[in-house]
């Protein structure tokens, strides 16, 4: 069997030259791997925030008629839990992998626009803080992550809360869009010779689909938010019901974005799992072309089903039928993915590492989310389910059972590549089982609570409604998830210092990134590889193996190899800061708007007119 050309050595070499560490180096970095790490660490921090919000919610609902937190604060909590987990946790965790993995998987030295990449990260960080900090002062957004108008318009939400939400999402949208342009270009244009589209690793493929969803879906929410912003600040009447506005305008715009957003959240996890399952089954992905096409099909159909979030609004029988059938159609490519994953494992030689357990966890749990999804693709049935806890159960099986499980699989799989050290398998085992049990205990009973009539987003409920047991179970489950997360963080930080040395390819995986030393040197590939196969390290020709041999050599610097790297620069961070200043001005003083605009224009010019890298000889 052909694995890596170079054996793992029990040393860990510095990824970066001395002098390139320290805070300033991180603030000015344009290296996709470092930016990936920044995304990962930031998103995990927000994961803690969103998790604490969730636990407070569960403490409140543990028993009937509890008032641990006030109604107002509860509404902020559930709004921010959803907003945080979607925009500040799952999307950026995916972005961490886009950043870290895509160039490595396609044989590139960096992304197409390294400085734009840094910009995306800083905008995300600042936007994340902008939208998160208000909760510590109990003035956080309180209109739900879906922010339905007219509730979010000034007459019904006069406070500053919704302002943070509208602007925070605008800021985060800038980050996502900039990153998406970057990755589309990277994948189209920076593939190594021989890396044809149909040889790309499945993670890169799913990411590719996601970037298109991002660039097509985010402008729609941008406009929806612009309307809301104008309504709230400049007195326009887009959602002003007194002026004859149609509240469904917001819902349509929001869900035209919102449904593709679901696939934006889950397809990267599908991609990660499609890397993990073959590796630990020692078999190539089953039905690669079908996996590609089904991913694309999910993305395309994802734009035609938004109104299934609106079956209760009274769209009429014809629209209901159309969106019901379109939604059911999506079940087909999704089902195919599940079958192909199982077929990848079948006849394999399955090794149950932590990563593999999480990947199998995704297959098992996402299936449940998929089945309940089909259950409310039927509008009449959905009328009993929508806005009840049944939906809460459903989308947590999709987003926790799907996205989060897949991302954990990816973290255990790729942390060795990022840091050069393995995470502990024993702790990982505890993490997985507690997550698996806690997750099911939290979310499975919600199916029952919902079908037994419990509406969503209620800050408390009365006793005698038949919901007490289910809520208690859910709350206990969420406490188990807290324990699981503590174990994960312990494992994660412990591995940075004390984890086993990984070597280039600890899992005997087959794709290009595993031909590189761990951690990956700044320049990624000493020589840009030529690719002749989907799994260069498994079934590659001599050409693949020769590139892998050269690229796995450790200890060389970019200067040794004569590789030109981009200059580090602080300018993207300053532009990002200018954006925050500008938006902050809208809720404080107009002076800041102009100051922010000036900062943006000035630093943008300075950025665009300065060269990316030293002149090429």
């Amino acid at each position, binding site marked *: 069997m052909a694995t890596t050309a170079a054996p793992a050595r029990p040393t860990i070499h510095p990824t970066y030259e001395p002098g390139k560490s320290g805070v300033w180096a991180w603030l000015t970095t344009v290296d996709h791997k470092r930016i990936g790490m920044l995304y990962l660490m930031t998103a995990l921090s927000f994961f803690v925030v969103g998790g604490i919000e969730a636990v407070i919610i569960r403490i409140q609902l543990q028993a009937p*008629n509890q*008032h641990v937190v006030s*109604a*107002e604060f509860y*509404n902020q909590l559930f709004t921010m839990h959803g907003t945080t987990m979607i925009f500040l946790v799952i999307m950026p965790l995916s972005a961490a992998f886009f950043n870290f993995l895509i160039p490595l998987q396609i044989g590139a030295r960096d992304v197409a626009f390294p400085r734009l990449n840094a910009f995306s990260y800083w905008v995300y960080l600042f936007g994340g803080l902008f939208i998160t900090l208000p909760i510590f002062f109990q003035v956080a957004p*309180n209109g739900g992550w879906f922010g*339905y108008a*007219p*509730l979010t318009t000034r007459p*019904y939400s006069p406070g500053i809360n919704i302002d943070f939400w509208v602007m925070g999402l605008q800021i985060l949208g800038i980050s996502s869009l900039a990153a998406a342009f970057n990755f589309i270009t990277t994948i189209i244009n920076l593939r190594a010779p021989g890396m044809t589209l149909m040889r790309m690793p499945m993670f890169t493929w799913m990411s590719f689909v996601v970037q298109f969803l991002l660039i097509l879906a985010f402008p729609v929410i941008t406009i929806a938010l612009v309307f809301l912003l104008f309504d709230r600040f400049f007195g326009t009447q887009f959602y002003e*019901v007194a002026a004859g506005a*149609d*509240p469904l305008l917001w819902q349509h715009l929001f869900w035209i974005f919102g449904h593709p957003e679901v696939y934006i959240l889950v397809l990267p996890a599908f991609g990660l799992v499609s890397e993990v399952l073959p590796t630990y*089954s020692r*078999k190539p992905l089953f*039905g690669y*072309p079908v996996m590609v096409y089904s991913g694309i099909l999910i993305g395309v159909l994802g734009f035609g089903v938004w109104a299934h979030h609106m079956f*209760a*609004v*009274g769209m009429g*029988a014809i629209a209901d*039928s159309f969106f*019901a*059938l379109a939604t*059911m*159609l999506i*079940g087909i490519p999704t*089902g*195919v993915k599940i079958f192909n994953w*199982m077929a990848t494992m*079948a*006849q*394999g*030689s*399955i090794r*149950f590492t932590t990563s593999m357990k999480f990947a199998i966890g995704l*297959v098992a749990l996402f*299936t449940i989310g998929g*089945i309940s999804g*089909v*259950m409310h693709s*039927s509008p009449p*049935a959905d*009328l*009993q389910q929508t*806005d*009840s806890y049944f939906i809460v159960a459903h989308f947590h099986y999709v987003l926790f059972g799907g996205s989060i499980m897949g991302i954990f699989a990816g973290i255990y799989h790729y942390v060795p590549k990022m840091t050069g050290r393995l995470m502990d398998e024993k702790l990982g*085992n505890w993490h997985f089982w507690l997550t698996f049990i806690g997750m099911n205990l939290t979310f*499975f009973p919600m199916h*029952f609570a919902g079908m*037994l*009539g*419990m*509406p*969503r987003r209620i*800050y*408390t409920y009365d006793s*005698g*409604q038949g919901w007490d047991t*289910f809520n208690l179970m859910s709350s206990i489950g969420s406490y188990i998830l807290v324990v699981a997360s503590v174990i994960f963080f312990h494992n994660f930080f412990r591995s940075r210092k004390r984890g086993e040395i990984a070597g280039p390819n600890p899992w005997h995986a087959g794709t290009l990134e595993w031909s590189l030393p761990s951690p990956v040197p700044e320049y990624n590939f000493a020589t840009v590889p030529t690719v002749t196969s989907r799994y260069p390290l498994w079934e590659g020709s001599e050409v693949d193996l020769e590139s892998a041999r050269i690229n796995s050599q450790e200890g060389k610097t970019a200067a040794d190899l004569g590789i030109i790297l981009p200059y580090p620069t602080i300018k993207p961070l300053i532009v990002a800061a200018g954006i925050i200043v500008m938006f902050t001005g809208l809720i404080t003083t107009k002076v800041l708007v102009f100051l922010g605009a000036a900062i943006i224009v000035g630093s943008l010019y300075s950025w665009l007119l300065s060269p990316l890298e030293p002149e090429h000889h």
Partner: protein
Amino acid sequence: MRETSRLRVLGTTGIALALALFLGACKQDYPNTTFVPHSEYGREIDFLWDRLLLLGTIVFVLIEGALIYVMIRYRRRETDERPPQTHGNVIIEVIWTLIPAFILLFIAIPTVRTIFTTQAKVAAGALQIEVIGHQWWWEFRYPEYGVTTANEIYLPVGRTVNFKLNSNDVIHSFWIPQLGGKRDVVTNRTNYIWLTPDSTMQPSVWNGFCAEYCGASHAKMKFRVFTVKPDQFASWVEHQRGPAVFGATASTGAAGTATTPAGGQPRESGVTSAGGAAPAVPRPPGSTIPGADTVAAPAPNAVLAGNRQPAAGSPGYIYPREQLPEYAKPHTPIPGNVTFTKGLTGNAARGQQVYSSAACIGCHTIAGNPMSVGNVGPNLTHFGSRSTIGAGSFPNSPAYLALWIKNARAMKPDILMPTLGKNEYDPVLKTRVTTGGLDDQQIADIVAYLSSLK
């Protein structure tokens, strides 16, 4: 392997647990269950649900079973041989693309059929009810009868009812789980939902909810639906369409006064002592406060339950208060910071005067009281006939009502109904009520007045 056997155990337990839960869910311990519909609309949905559940369970068992089989069968053994490097199999892949498509066909066809049957135009002769969503209460109008009520609907069994849904402010959603699916109540838009409560039902009460997040007190936007026999409905409606019977009963002098229970200490926080603190009217609306230390006078509704011919001027049919099941009685504890002086006697006639000169009339209508024509808050004409206050938040009893009038905003977050008690802290305005506040005696009088509006 260790993990797999553990998974097997876990899987079996999980499925057993799920089944146990599901079977349990069918019992009547679950007053809002959607599994036991009580209307033809509910049954249409339930038919689809049963099919979805059956197919879903089959798919679930097959996929998870296959997954577990694959995990056990193909786990890595000691001889770590490289498995066959298959890349795919077109025939198999086509088959498992077609299987889900085939299964979905069994869902799609009845789905579309049900969409068109349940959204068809309602049959002629249906009872029309206009539903108007407010933050955070429900206004119900029976245009046919000129009746306006709040947070309670009476429906005759066996007759189709057509709800016309409109919102006064933000989006709400109208949901009676046991009678069928929900429908959003959208501003600037009229939606309809119609259903026929089963004609074989005994008089019953159902919980209704707002299912669309609508702001601070979304959780407290509930309502009650009473499905009653047609003649009971006729009695109820006959009475509700007229002005309040206060005038008639007040002249007897019975309903006009309220006696005070023994004891005069300030009420402690919590429900248990609430009854002792509040003014008790001689004819309380049929239910006593949990843990109340006074026994209420016999409830008139007990008599009315069997009342088949409502006499003019006497209260019509009301669902017997003492027969209300636990799930239809609010159990919300009273916030600890709202208290009421013990030992006060309310006088309904005096209460009417206080009410008519206080802020109340700016928002509420009471037919028969020419001063009270506000249309911002619920219509209170037959307030005494209702079982809850605050849209299902609290029982409609003198003790709760007194606290409610004194400081509604402390009892239900962010509501429009202002804090009225003198020196009370208004949590919305974040100030104490100084000028124009009502003292406890005045509130006790208003309680006596309102409670007598049968």
